Structure formats: structure tokens, C-alpha cells
């Protein structure tokens, strides 16, 4: 299953303050660890929202409203993401716990969100029935 580790924006990241060399090194080391474990799919940092654009649909069926950044409330925004492929929710949490504090001055926050998979969308009655039949077959083999 895939998880996105979302690094929340901070006042520093929004101000375009570059992270310390120490943090950059720690992040790099962490990413290497993810790569070596074969779980890293992608990781990127985002530029501050001052260069961002928001497209909203305030009226249902109406035209989109385009707003240029910056946007208020740093905590509601994201500064980067890391996409990992893991076997369980707990494994995702363990990996996220190993990520260095992305801020270091009290505003660091990482949010984990699971990504929809084929299986989530493929649990049709037919496929579930097929699976049940296979399970039965395995049970019978076990008894044999």
C-alpha cells in the first residue's frame, strides 16, 4: 500500500528560508535509507505558496476562481511530500517516525495519508466471490 508523507508548511518554508545544512543532510540520509529498503517511490519539496495558484469553484456549476498566492495559514499548506510503498499502516508510521523533524523549531509536522489502490476499487462482488472460492480451496488442501 502506498502512503504519502506530507510535510506541512511552516513560517520558514513559506518565507522561502532554506533549511539548515544539517537538516538537508539528515533528510538526504533518510531518503537514502528509504531507497535502500526499496520503499521510496518519490519525494519532492514544494516552493513557497507565494508562487502558487489556487483554483476554486465557489459556485456549483460556476466558473473557476483563480487566486494567486501567497495563502494564509502555513499549517494548512504543504511544503513537500514523500511517497512510500509499504506493507502496512504501521510500517508507514514507523518510516514516518524516522523522518527528521522537518522544521526543528517547533513547527515540524508530518501527515500520513494512504493512497487508493486498485484493490480498493476492485472489490466487486464477482472478484470477492472468486476469492472466497480460492480460500475454500486452500482450506481443503490444508486438510488433505
Amino acid at each position, binding site marked *: 500500500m502506498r502512503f504519502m508523507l506530507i510535510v506541512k508548511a511552516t513560517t520558514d518554508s513559506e518565507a522561502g528560508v532554506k533549511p539548515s545544512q544539517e537538516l538537508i543532510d539528515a533528510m538526504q540520509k533518510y531518503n537514502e*535509507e528509504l*531507497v*535502500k*529498503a*526499496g*520503499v521510496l*517511490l*518519490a519525494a519532492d519539496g514544494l516552493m513557497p505558496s507565494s508562487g502558487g495558484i489556487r483554483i476554486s469553484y465557489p459556485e456549483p456549476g460556476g466558473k473557476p476562481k483563480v487566486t494567486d498566492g501567497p495563502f494564509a495559514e502555513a499549517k494548512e499548506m504543504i511544503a513537500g511530500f514523500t*511517497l512510500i*510503498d509499504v*506493507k*502496512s*499502516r*504501521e*510500517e508507514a*508510521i*514507523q*518510516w514516518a517516525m524516522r523522518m527528521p523533524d522537518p522544521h526543528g523549531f517547533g513547527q515540524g509536522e508530518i501527515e500520513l495519508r494512504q493512497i487508493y489502490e*486498485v*484493490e480498493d476499487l*476492485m*472489490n*466487486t462482488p*464477482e*472478484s*470477492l466471490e*472468486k*476469492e472466497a472460492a*480460492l*480460500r475454500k*480451496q*486452500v482450506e481443503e*488442501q*490444508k486438510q*488433505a
Partner: protein
Amino acid sequence: MTSSTTQRTVDAIWRMESAKLIAGVTRMVRDVGLAEDLAQDALVIALERWPETGIPDNPGAWLMTTAKRRAIDLMRRSKVRDQKYVEVARNQELYTEDDIDAVLDGEIGDDLLRLIFMTCHPVLSQEARVALTLRLLCGLTTDEIARSFLVAESTIAQRIVRAKKTLSAEKVPFEVPAGAELQDRLTAVLEVIYLMFNEGYSATSGDQWFRPLLCQEALRLGRVLAEISPQEPEVHGLVALMEIQSSRFQARVNAKGEPVLLLDQNRARWDQLLIRRGLAALERSRKLGRPLGAYSLQAAISACHAQAPTAAETNWIKIAALYEALSRVTPSPIVELNKAVAISMAFGPAFGLQIVDELNAEPSLKGYHLLPSVRGDLLVKLGRYEEARIEFERAASMTRNEQERILLLKRASECASERSN
């Protein structure tokens, strides 16, 4: 923290750390079976302590230290029996949580590599290699392995026990083979990984959860291997092939669970992230500057499809050339058959048919349903419907896959009506 969440967390940590743990302990005790037991002991101790103490900051190092202490205890106790163990114990430094980081990079990668060469050793049968690798390198339980292969758990358990005994009895060394042996042994390792992947990928039926698990494990192991063995082009080739094939996971089956042929797949459903990763892995293979091996060539063929915006825009000339190269690296009638398909797409069905007709005499393809199926397809394109119908019916009588049989009979009856028109 409740005990059940601790249990799940410990399971996750086990999955993340077990291979490194077993590899590190194997280097000490030189016996994978014993190493796995010691690693499991460390896990049991963790399960007892962690609910009270909380999970340590570096659980991997904690487990490693604990397992190694157990190993040293065991060696000291068996002092009388085996003087050699004492020597090992004396020279063994214990990892502390502080210096584990330094060790993580070089040594543990080497140990993992040694372990995978051990579990994929040719002294074991192919299925034993797969089971043992899933168990020791991927940290799967015997139950998970059994479900993946649709066999009884006891069968897998026995297979693993026997494999460990064989490795011990045959005194298989814990080392990365050197010199000329390396390539052969590496081929064996890649075979195991690809077999694992195919087992999960090719079956369209099967447990909804455990089949994909095999693909994911194979892919993950391939990615790990690419990091610890970066100088081997075929490792990257295999990773590229698996990444690109995985990108089609969603598109290769329709809503009814029936397989969808590559050229009929909805390309919008291909996973672009995995395609990009696959192309990058293929690039790593190419950059090493050696002639492309069988996996890299297959990945390159797969990449041609992945890069074509529509089926009609497929670069068949390039694919035909890659199959030609592949048939030189690994000559096989099945590669020839694929080449025939590519050539017919690139230069017209008559050229493809010529190759297929030559293959008709090939004894190893007797009973292989894709031969008449491909021949039927080419004959349809040439407007020779009656001959095509016979081929499709022949193919239908050969396949063991029900879905495929229905499809082939449908094509046969289409030929019949085409002819009467």
C-alpha cells in the same frame, strides 16, 4: 500503547529489520536457520519489553544488539562442543545503538547481499529458493507464502525447514561469489526474484491480496538489490522490467476480472510513476555501458510499449530489433514467436507468418497454444479465414485457461462467419 498496537508495530519493525538482522547474525553464526531463530528470539524479547519501556529510538539497532548478545551467549555455552565458535565470539564486537549508523551503510548491505546469494543458492530447488527468500529476505510468514502460492502452510513450512537443512549440510558459505561464478549465481538470484514476480503477476485468478503481495515483494527486493549491487546492469534491467510491468496492473484486467491484452489496455490507467521509475532503472542499466542482457532487453521492449501514447503509435521496428537482440542473448522458440509478432506489426503479416511457419516444426512448442493462436491472428490479417479458424480451434483445445479458451472459440466463429460473408 495497547498490546495489540504494539504487536502490529513490532510486526512492521520486523518487516523492516528482519532481513538485515538475519543477515548480520548469519555472518556471526554461519547458519541461516540458527540466525533466524536468534533473530526471532530478539523479537520475542522485544515483544515482552517494549509494551512497558516503549519502542526504542532505533529499534533496528536494539534488535541487532539483542540478537547478537544471544548469539554470543549461545557460542559461549557451546564452547566445549565447538572451539571454533569461541573464536568467532571473541572477535565479535557488539553493535551499540550509537555506532549502528556507521555500520548500516556498508557492512549491512554486504551482509544482505551474502544472504540473498545464500537463499538463492543452486543447491536448492527453485521452489525452495523462492520460499526461503520470501521468508528470510522479505520477512513473510509461512502463512503469507502459502496463500501466495495457493499451497498448504505445512508444505511451505517443510520446504523452508528442508532448505535450511540443505544449506547447512552442503556447507553453503555466507559470501558473495567471486570471479566467473558471480555471473551465474547472480543469474540464479534474478531468476528467483523474477519467478516471484511472475507468480504474482501472471495469475489473473488468485487471492486478491496475496497475489499482488508477491509482485510487491519481488519489486521491493529488486529495488534493494539494485542499491546493494549497483554495478550489475541486469539487476537494474530486472527492476526496470518489473516496474514497467507493474505499471499496467490496473489496466490488465477488466471489471469482470478478465485479462485485457496489452494493445487493448486503457493506457490512461497505466501508472506513470512506475513507468518513470522503470525508464530510470533501464537508463541505469544502459549507463553501465555493457551489452544489454536478457532482462534489460525485455525491459527495453516493455519501455517501447510504455512510451507509445496509443497502441497504433507503437514503435514495432524497434521492438522487432530488440527481439532480434534478445533471441541472440537467450535463443528460445518463444522469443522467436514474439519476434514474429513484432515483425508482422512492423513489416506486415506475411513476414511474421514465415517465421511462425518455421516454428511449427519446433518440438518444444508442440502443445503451446500461443503458436496456433498467433498463426491464426496472422492468417486473419491476410484474409485466410478458413485456415485461421482451424488454428484458433486448435489453440482453444490446447489452452488450460478457461477465459482464453472462450476468447479463442469466439475468434474461430468470427472467422467462420467472415468466410461465409
